[in-house]
């Protein structure tokens, strides 16, 4: 925000600086609340990506890449997929089938363990979807002069 603003539209920049934190917070809420209310990994990932896309349109691609660089995005995407597959493999290690969360010894009952497993999986989906959507946006977005 301190660097030279790319967009000269003061309404867009002021609106974005108010809206972006709220959108990101809401995305996190949807991600964490996904098991007990409307929501889930896919939706939360897209909402988080939308927040960053708003930030990018207001403050420019350069500023956005300072926060979430392309390399970091690929690391996050791989981490999300790794969390998903890792939870599945964890179930194999504890003697169940692939992605059979009930056998993982967290929580008192298999249903509770399965709840935590679902939360982890949703987190993985959310991370992957967010970073891939942003990565696609970075690639398709018009480059500014001097970039």
């Amino acid at each position, binding site marked *: 925000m301190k660097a030279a603003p790319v967009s000269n539209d003061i309404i867009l920049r002021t609106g974005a600086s108010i809206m972006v934190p709220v959108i990101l917070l809401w995305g996190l809420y949807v991600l964490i609340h996904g098991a*007990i*209310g*409307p929501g*889930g990994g*896919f939706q939360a990932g897209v909402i988080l990506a939308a927040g960053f896309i708003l930030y990018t349109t207001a403050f420019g691609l350069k500023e956005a890449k300072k926060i979430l660089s392309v390399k970091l995005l690929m690391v996050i995407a791989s981490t999300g997929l790794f969390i998903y597959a890792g939870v599945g493999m964890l179930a194999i290690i504890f003697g169940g089938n692939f992605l059979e969360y009930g056998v993982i010894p967290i929580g008192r009952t298999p249903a509770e363990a399965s709840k935590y497993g679902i939360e982890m999986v949703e987190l993985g989906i959310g991370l992957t*979807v967010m970073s891939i*959507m942003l990565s*696609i946006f970075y*690639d*398709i977005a018009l480059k500014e002069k001097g970039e």
Partner: protein
Amino acid sequence: MVLELIFTKYNYIIYITLMTIGFYGMIGKRNLIKKLIGMSIFQYSIFLFYVSAADVSGGTAPILLKEPAVYVNPLPHVLILTAIVVAVSTLAVGLSLAIRIYREFGTLDEDKILELSK
């Protein structure tokens, strides 16, 4: 017969019309971006079809409540949730292919591309 079709199954007629619009976009237009828009309309008409097949009249969203309630069918929602993501992925790949083709040939018109690539 026809009236019964229109009054109880109007939703299907709407999706079929949308689907035909998308189909026309895919086969009738020459611009690659317009073809992709047609493909998206086609896909989304099918999503609407699935979600409306899940509907149960008087049902609520498939999130369990304390008191017993009628829920809509959750399975099509799950299928469509994943299908939307695949639709976005195919659209992104298609658009990036279109960008590549534009960089290579300088046009998005199908016939011109076929001529240039001979």
